[in-house]
Structure formats: structure tokens, C-alpha cells
């Protein structure tokens, strides 16, 4: 597209009261030689917009630079189909935050003009990345209640589904239940299991192909084109899929580790899983002598909420014990159930079920810490509790004890297994001439387990350090986020949850799988840049195969060919631009965002011999809106800083700092999201990587006789906009105390 530029400057909202508009026009028309340059009192008004639209239709303008307000407002007004639009934020970044009509304010506005026009000169319209073929089937791994619900969810939306279950039968744990918890209001009576009906629905659905007694041998490819190898009883099978849902479920915590609660030493101490089996086969019979149990004690948090075992709450056990107490009471009205708990956790409307059980005189609920289980006469058991009501210690005699054991996700790799793999990997590394670090922990997703992804970064989904092996999302508001595009998790592999929760969770995962397939088919990114049709374009001729991009990509989108040259599997890419930042050869660029664009923007700035000139690179999702919010409050900040939004601080390429400082710019402040535990970066590690890269820069700056403190990274939450002026002032003050950048003179 041959570009024809039009620059439009708004005079409204105090802009014309703050700066001299004619001089801004001069920057565009004379310095930058823009043929069409116009001003308007209120550019967003219908008349102002007509000005632009008429130039687009009449003059052939196709690259529109709007110097007015923040791009976060008036987005619809300043959107012109088929044209490149660049917004210069004169209102928030100048008019509302600077002293009116000063030389420095004018210089700031003029620099924003230069930078904005330069950016437009380096921007091209996106040409979406299209796969030649796309397979729209959804692969569901796991045939329990979650997997089956996900499968039906996608199938009923018209998509083909491949369902792979390890066991010989579908149904998972739900199929082993005697009865199920109430599924709907009034949440009072336990129900006959509905799992059979679900299995029938799945097996008879024409869109669903079921593989039982099967496991995933390998998943190669990328969203839209996954090649799935399935190991079945009848030999290997191949399938194609567009997206994947992992619903691999859970296993009960190993009760053999609960000796202190009598498990393994007394046969009448059983788990809640065994209790389902017993109830399914008739009366509540205790294992030791086949006698009917008439006093059944349920010990809650058996292994859960216990730093020695599972530090977390398994969420389902309180409700399950209430349900099993109901078995005891229904099967024999003379029998008693004791539930010994730390806290009764029946959130939501399940409280009504709890209440109904509380009203049953045959169910005794006691808060306390179980201190031990010991043998009484006749095969019975004593359960000792402390810290009960009134602080007393009590002893309960029961003829059977049920341990409400917790939930371990099937994605959890046990420590021993992890250690074995660590040894194996270290040996392999040594054999190939590497130097293994025996102290470096092995990340669990490097160990093949369920998905066996053919990804350079490892065969399984990365999990959060603090998630105990669960594949939970780091983001409260985006529950289905994983670090492998197109692969979503659902049910108890994601979070400990009960059946009703799993059913709801499963449907959300189906939607995300479908969404990824449809976005990929149209060449769009998926969350969080779902509108984005640009993608990283790599000039491979200049690539030195240093592999930094392969390692740093948060989503495992970059693979390497036989020669070790990296290449993007584009539909895995979320367009965060971490690779762009990582590349020392500067060969990774987007149509609307590139290394050269940024360097040119820095160079476009007017750097006088005297006077501080600083650049602020800001995360566009958090820091940029925070600046806007401060501006709305008419907070003032230094006129020395020119802010430029980036997709993520992970975009930071060290070349930018070199380019900026060598052009005489005095310093650079990088404002991004909190990193470390509970990180807030929506691209996982953007600000953290930027920080690491800065660490490497310090030495270089030292060699250039430049103070490393000239470049500073600030972690800022979007909500801390009220603190921004002070933070910026501190940074500027620090720079003011330094000598001017010596490169100014060159």
C-alpha cells in the first residue's frame, strides 16, 4: 500500500490553551513533509470526523495521524476502515498534565508529534497469518464427568470431538459413586447418579469419537493443526484436532501416609472412596468382621489442610462426608454418623444440604482437631479430639472410621518421580557435553505424563509454583488461561472441586477450545490480544540461532529446525512480542510494532544540548491507563519524559536503550506489572524478563561511562495511578542530579 498521510490536530479539551497549534502543524508539514495537515476545534465531533473522512475519500489519505486524546477513548470515532490510524495523546499527556504555554511543554508536544508521525511511517496494515488447512475437532483428554461434559459441550455446538480415556470405561470417579450430591435447588436430597445417562449421551453422539483404554502418545503441531497419536489396546491411532481440553482429573491422596489416623493398621479405618464402594454394595458393612457399622465417624481434612500432607483444602470432602453420613442414616435409621471437622465448608446453596443434615438427630457434627485414632475393644475405634467446643478434649468411640481424604491432581508429579527424571535428564545433558546443575530444580512440565506435547519447552503444561500441581490459571478474571495456546484445562485437574463445579467448569473449557479454533481460522490471536491480526515476522537470514526467543517465549510458540534455527508455530503465538525483546539481532518484528520503529521514534525526538530528555516505555494495559487516569485528575508530571506504549515490557530490546542513550537521551524509565509470586503480567514474565535484560546491561553502561541508574524499571499496578506523579518525580530528580548524557554532544 502506498501511504498517503494526513495529520489532524484537535484544539479542544484545553489542547490549544496549552500548546501553539501552528507550531505543531509546522512539525508535521515542514519537518515531516506531511501533505495533508488540518486542525479542528473538536476533532471527535461529527464535523471534525467529516474532515478526516472527506480526505480519505477525496484525497486518498490512508494513513491517519490523530493528535488529540488518548487512544483509550473515542476509539470508535477515530476508526477508519482500511486506513492505518495512529493516535497521539496530546490531551492526557500534555494538555492535562503540563504547564500551559511553556517552551518545555511545547517541545514535549512537538516531540509527541514527531514520534507519532514516525510511528505511522513504520506501521503497515496487518496481513493475517492464515493456515492453509484447519481442523476444527476438539481433543478431550479424560473421560470422567468433566471430560464428558466438555466433549458434549463442543459436540452440541457442532464440533467433532475426540475423547481419550485411560480406563476401560468412561465415567471416572463419578461412576464409582453410590449416589451423588443434590444438583439443584432445594439442594436437600442426595440423588441417583446421572453418570450413566451422560455416558450414553457421549457414546451415542455422532460428533464424538471415544477411545477407551487409551492414552496420548504424542501431540504434535499447533492450534488448528494438532496431530495426535493415540496408544490404544488395538494399536496406535492417529487423529487431528484444532484444540485440546485436558480433563485428566484427580486421584485420592494416598491414605497409606495417614498412619496417625489408623489407616493400614485397623481395617475398620477406610477412605471416603472405599465408603462409596461399601455403600454401593448394600448395607454399611465394616471390613473387619462384616458387621453392620452403626456408629460411623468421619474424619475431615484427612491429609488436607495439613502442612505435612496437602496444605490446601480439597473442597469436596465436607460435602462428600455429609452425603456419606446420609448413606449411613438412610440404610439404617438406628445408625449414627459423627462428622469431625475443622471448618464445615459448604459454600453457596450447598449450605441448604448442610442444614438439612444438621437437622437430622442421627448426625453429630463436632468441630475439633483429631489427635489420634486408636483401637478400642471389639474392632471398634477411639477417635480423640482436641480444641472442640468449650476447648475440651473428647473421645468418640466408633465402629468404623471414614477418612475424608483429599484430592491430588493427576498432573502432580510425585517428588520421587521428579527426582528420577532429574537424574535422567542430567545424565543425558552430560553425555551431550553439557554441564548439569544438580541443584537446579526440574520443572514438572518437563516430565512426560498426560499430554506428551511435542514442544521444545516440555511435554506438559507449565504449572504455577504455588499451585501444588494443579493447572490453575494465574488470573482471577481469566480462569481458562494456560501457557499453551489452544490447550485448556477443566475440572479437578485445574482446581479441587466437586462434581457440580466440574460440570460448569467443563463447559467453559469447551468454549475456549472452540474460540481458539475460530480465531485461528481467521488469523486472529487469542486472549488477551484477541483483536490482533499482526504476528511476529522473522528475518531468518540474520538469525544467529542464539535461541533466546525459543527459551523466553512464555507460550512455547517457538521451535527449532534440525539446524537449530528457531521458527514460530504461529497459531501458538499470543503476539506479546517477548521474542522481539529477546532478539539481540533485532530480526523479529510486527507490522505495527518493530525494533526499527521504536529506534526511529527515539531518533525523531529533538534532543537539545541542554535540558533533560527521558523516555518512558509503558505497558499498554496497566501503566498507560494509569497515566491516563492521573491525567484525568489533572495531576502534573515532568515535561522531560516522552511516554511510548509497548505491548508488554517483555518487548524491551536492549538495542533500544543503546539507541536512545547514544542519541543523547538522558534516561529511560520502564513501567510494567508486578512480577514474582502473584505476578500480574498477562504475558507471564514480561516485566521480569525486562528486569533480567536490564541486569545484563549494567556492565555495558558502565563501560560507556554511563550511570546504570539512568535506566530504571518500576513495577506499578494500574490502580496506583495516584502514586504515579510522585514516582516519576523521584526518577526525574535522580536524573537531574546526574551530569547530562555525554553523548548529547555527538
Amino acid at each position, binding site marked *: 500500500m502506498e501511504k498517503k498521510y494526513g495529520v489532524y490536530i484537535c484544539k479542544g479539551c484545553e489542547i490549544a490553551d496549552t500548546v501553539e497549534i501552528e507550531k505543531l502543524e509546522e512539525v508535521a508539514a515542514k519537518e515531516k513533509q506531511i501533505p495533508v495537515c488540518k486542525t479542528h476545534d*473538536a476533532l471527535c465531533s461529527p464535523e471534525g470526523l467529516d474532515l478526516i473522512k472527506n480526505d480519505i475519500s477525496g484525497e486518498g489519505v490512508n494513513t491517519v495521524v490523530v493528535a488529540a486524546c488518548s487512544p483509550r477513548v473515542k476509539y470508535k470515532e477515530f476508526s477508519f476502515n482500511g486506513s492505518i490510524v495512529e493516535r497521539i495523546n496530546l490531551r492526557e499527556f500534555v494538555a492535562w498534565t503540563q504547564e500551559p504555554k511553556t517552551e518545555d511543554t511545547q517541545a514535549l508536544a512537538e516531540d509527541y508529534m514527531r514520534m507519532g508521525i514516525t510511528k505511522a511511517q513504520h506501521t503497515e496494515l496487518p496481513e493475517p497469518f492464515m493456515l492453509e488447512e484447519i481442523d476444527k475437532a476438539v481433543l478431550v483428554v479424560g473421560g470422567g464427568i468433566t471430560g464428558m461434559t466438555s466433549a458434549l459441550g463442543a459436540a452440541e455446538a457442532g464440533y467433532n470431538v475426540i475423547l481419550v480415556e485411560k480406563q476401560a470405561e468412561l465415567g471416572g470417579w463419578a461412576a464409582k459413586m453410590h449416589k451423588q450430591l443434590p444438583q439443584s435447588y432445594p439442594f436437600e436430597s442426595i440423588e441417583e447418579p446421572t453418570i450413566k445417562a451422560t455416558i450414553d449421551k457421549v457414546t451415542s453422539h455422532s460428533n464424538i469419537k471415544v477411545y477407551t483404554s487409551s492414552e496420548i502418545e504424542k501431540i504434535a503441531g499447533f492450534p488448528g493443526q494438532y496431530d495426535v497419536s493415540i496408544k490404544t489396546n488395538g494399536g496406535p491411532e492417529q487423529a487431528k484436532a484444532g484444540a485440546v481440553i485436558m480433563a485428566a482429573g484427580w486421584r485420592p491422596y494416598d491414605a497409606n501416609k495417614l498412619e496417625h489416623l489408623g489407616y493400614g493398621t485397623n481395617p475398620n479405618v477406610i477412605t471416603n472412596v472405599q465408603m462409596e464402594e461399601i455403600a454401593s454394595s448394600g448395607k454399611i458393612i465394616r471390613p473387619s468382621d462384616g458387621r453392620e457399622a452403626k456408629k460411623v465417624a468421619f474424619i475431615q481434612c484427612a491429609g488436607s489442610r495439613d502442612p505435612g500432607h496437602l496444605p*490446601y483444602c480439597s473442597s469436596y470432602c465436607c460435602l462428600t462426608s455429609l452425603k456419606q453420613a446420609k448413606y449411613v442414616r438412610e440404610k439404617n435409621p438406628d445408625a449414627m454418623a459423627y462428622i469431625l471437622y475443622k471448618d464445615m465448608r459448604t459454600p453457596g446453596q450447598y449450605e441448604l444440604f448442610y442444614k438439612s443434615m444438621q437437622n437430622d438427630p442421627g448426625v453429630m457434627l463436632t468441630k475439633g482437631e483429631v489427635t489420634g485414632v486408636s483401637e478400642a475393644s471389639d474392632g471398634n475405634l477411639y477417635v480423640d479430639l482436641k480444641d472442640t467446643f468449650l476447648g475440651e478434649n473428647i473421645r468418640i468411640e466408633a465402629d468404623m472410621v471414614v477418612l475424608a481424604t483429599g484430592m491430588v491432581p493427576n498432573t502432580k508429579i510425585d517428588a520421587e518421580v521428579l527426582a528420577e527424571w532429574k537424574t535422567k535428564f542430567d545424565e543425558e545433558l552430560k553425555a551431550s557435553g553439557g554441564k548439569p546443575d544438580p541443584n537446579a530444580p526440574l520443572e514438572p512440565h518437563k516430565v512426560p505424563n498426560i499430554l506428551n506435547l511435542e514442544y521444545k519447552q516440555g511435554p506438559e503444561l507449565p504449572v504455577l509454583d504455588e499451585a501444588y500441581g494443579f493447572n490453575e490459571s494465574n488470573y482471577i*478474571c481469566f480462569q481458562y488461561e494456560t501457557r499453551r495456546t489452544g490447550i485448556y484445562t477443566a475440572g479437578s485437574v485445574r482446581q479441587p472441586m466437586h462434581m457440580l463445579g466440574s460440570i460448569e467448569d467443563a*463447559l467453559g473449557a469447551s468454549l475456549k477450545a472452540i474460540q481458539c479454533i475460530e480465531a485461528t481460522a481467521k488469523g486472529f490471536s487469542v486472549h488477551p490480544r484477541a483483536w490482533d491480526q499482526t504476528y511476529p515476522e522473522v528475518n531468518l537470514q540474520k538469525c544467529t540461532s542464539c535461541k533466546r526467543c525459543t527459551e523466553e517465549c512464555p507460550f512455547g510458540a517457538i521451535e527449532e529446525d534440525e539446524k537449530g534455527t528457531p521458527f514460530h508455530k504461529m497459531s501458538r503465538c499470543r503476539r506479546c512480542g517477548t521474542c522481539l525483546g529477546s532478539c539481540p539481532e533485532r530480526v523479529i518484528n510486527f507490522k505495527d510494532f518493530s525494533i526499527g520503529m521504536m529506534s526511529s521514534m527515539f531518533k525523531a525526538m529533538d534532543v537539545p544540548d541542554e535540558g533533560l530528555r527521558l523516555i518512558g516505555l509503558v505497558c499498554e*494495559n496497566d501503566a498507560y*491507563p494509569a497515566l491516563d487516569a492521573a491525567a484525568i485528575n489533572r495531576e502534573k508530571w515532568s515535561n522531560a519524559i516522552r511516554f511510548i506504549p509497548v505491548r508488554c515490557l517483555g518487548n524491551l530490546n536492549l538495542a533500544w536503550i543503546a539507541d536512545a542513550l547514544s542519541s543523547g537521551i538522558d534516561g529511560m524509565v520502564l513501567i510494567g506489572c508486578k512480577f514474582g509470586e502473584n505476578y500480574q503480567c498477562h504475558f507471564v514474565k514480561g516485566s521480569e524478563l525486562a528486569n533480567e535484560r536490564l541486569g545484563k546491561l549494567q556492565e555495558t553502561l558502565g563501560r560507556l561511562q554511563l550511570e546504570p541508574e539512568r535506566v530504571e524499571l518500576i513495577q506499578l499496578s494500574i490502580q496506583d495511578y495516584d502514586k504515579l506523579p510522585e514516582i516519576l518525580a523521584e526518577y526525574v530528580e535522580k536524573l537531574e542530579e546526574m551530569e547530562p548524557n555525554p553523548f548529547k554532544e555527538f
Partner: protein
Amino acid sequence: MSEQETNILVIGGGISGLTTATEAAEAGYTVTILEKEPFLGGRVSRMNKYFPKLCPPSCGLEINYRRVKLNDRISFLTLTEVEKISGQAGSYEVDVKLNPRYVNEKCTGCNACVEACPVEVPNDFNAGLDKRKAAYVRSEQSFPFQYVIDKAACKSDCGAKCREACKYGAVDLEMQAETVKIKAGAIALATGWKPYDAKKIDNLGFGTSPDIITNVMMERISSGNGPTQGKITRPSDGKEVKKVAFVQCAGSRDENHLAYCSAVCCLATLKQITYVREQYPDAEAYMFYIDIRTPGTAYERFFNNVKDDENVKLIKGKVAKVSADPATGDIIVEAEDILAGGKIKVQVDMCVLATGMQPTVSEMKLPSDIKINENGFAVIGKDRKGIYAVGCAKDPVDVAKSVQSATGAALKAIQTVGRLS
């Protein structure tokens, strides 16, 4: 009556509605969001931080708003009231009243109308803890960033100062309500919740002293964009707080009020304790609870972290009475202490009632076959395809669960509307 068509109509623009809408739209469907207030964001836009990460809701809202802004398949209408829903799955017709904003799309957000407006009224966004003008925008992060005039608060004799002040012709005090008919294939009810009216809980003293507040008020007091710029002080005299009591199950798990557990209040209180403790290294917090309900992984870890703080006292027991000491103005909380035995009486600077969530779906005009259960939640029969209840319209849930629920509802809605061609 003008007409619009959309694949999916989402009623409610809070976190549940926004999620349903964006997820469905990004799967390729057209969506219209109806919001009754002048701005999107709902309850979460009033919160300071999310538990357990203590991250700001505005971060995720910013992403969601951007998803709305940049997606041509999503449109939204504010200040709406649903008047009638008729039809069936695939072809619903919904009559929607659009209440006037009195500010048109020419609004640039320059704030001149606010500066000119002579009227001050209690600020509903800040739970009435401060004042706002009749012309207003909720906060710096409001979306849409288009001002609104609260006509009910206007003085007729001010001479339309806001209209005079607006250079852009955006103030239109003659704007009339209109009705629009929206045809939709599926409907998601994401109507959300309101805090249970604490005045109804006689023994907890709400209304007898300004220092007995609700958890919703506490959230505003702790927010940087709230009435005190985030400084936690007691409302009566602006004094810093040294001792704060939190009363759990204020209305919840109580057959005289809300029979169910509101599922969020334990975590909300633990979170609010971190607000107090972060601001005041010496302050003490008392939490009176029946059961601490922090299910799962991160929630339990969050509970443990707060519990390990020695200035936090957890007392298992139902609160019998909250009252103001007539002599000092301090708040006295009387409760039974179940574990220690006997009664406990604590004198504090401020008392926060962890009021529960009450669903608002029953306030809507719904088709007759959609039932509301005794708790106020929507019960939609299995054969009623095409209308789906989301988030707190269906169950008391936190943000994470609302998001799951909303994403699942988006799936059901697209199933109804039909497979993409």
C-alpha cells in the same frame, strides 16, 4: 420502536456479563450487553483488590473493556431496563427501555459540566460515604468515559449550568427515554447481586453508628479512588483505626435473612484484614466466624497467611450484639467464644459487617416459566433452552467462579444460536 438484532443478548455488564459477552463474541457471534447503570463494570468496579492475589480489578476490566472496544461484534447499551421478554430460543424479542443519559456522544470527558454543576448528592458509587455532583462520571476508569446527568438530583433553578459549560454540545437536558426492540437468539441473565440490607439485621447495630459499616463500604474506604483516597479511617471522625472487628455471616447462613452461605464473605474479610494490617502495623483485627470457608488451594494459603499474623484474632462464635458505646463512641462487639467457652466483649474503633450477596435477578421482568427460588436465584428448567442464568443470578459465587460460569454460559448460548456456517 426501533429494532436491533443480535445473536446473544447479555443482561448485565458486570464481570459475569462482560465475560459472557466477550467470550461469545470472540467465538464469532454478535452480542449486545444491556447495563442498567450508566457505566459497565458492575460490582467489581467498586472493589479495591481481588482475593487472594490482591491484584486490582481494574487490570482485568481494562482488558475486558478493550475486548469490547475493539470487537465489532459487541455492542452495549447503558441505562437500560428490560420491559418484556417474549419468544423462544432462536427468536427472542426483548423490549428495552433506554433511560436518558442527558449527555450525548459528543461528550469528550473534559469535566466542565461537573465543575459547573451546583448540586451535590450522596455518591452511590462510594456507598454514600461522600458526595458527587448531579453531573458526574464514576471514576477515572469508568467505561464508557461519557458523563451522565442524574436528573433526579438536578435543581430545576440552576439555569442548566452544565449545558452552558459544555463547549461540545454534549449536554441535552431534553433527552427522552426510548424503547428499542432487540431480537436475539439466546439470552444470558448476568444480573448480579446487591449487598444484603444490613439494617434488617437488628442485633448488628447497622445505622446506629457511622462506625458500623458493611464490607462493601469497607471496600470503598480502602480504595484509592474512594471517599478517603484509600486511607482507612473511621467514618464518624476520620480517626485512624487501631482495632477493627469483622462480623461474618451478617445475614448469611441465617434462615431469617439469607439461608445460604454467600461464599465470598470469609475471603473478603481476610482480604480486608490485609488492607488494615498493611496500613497500620500496630492495628489489630478481630474476625468473628462460624466456619472459615476458604476452599481450594490459593484461598487456603491466603487464609493461612492472614491467620499467621499475630495481630489477627480469629474467634469462632456468633456475634450477639454490635453497639456503640454512648460514652466513647467506640463500637462494642459481644459474641460467644465457642472454643474458649463463655462470652467475649471487644471494644473496637470500627466494625465491618460481612454482609452477604443477595441476587437481583428477581427484580427483572422474566418470562413466567423462569422461576425464582426462595433464595432469590433463578431456576431455569432443563427444557428452557435459550435463556441462561450466569454467575450470581444462579448461585452466590466469587469472581473466579463467575468467570467460569460466564464462559460456560457463552458456550450454551452459542450452542443455541447454532453452529457457524
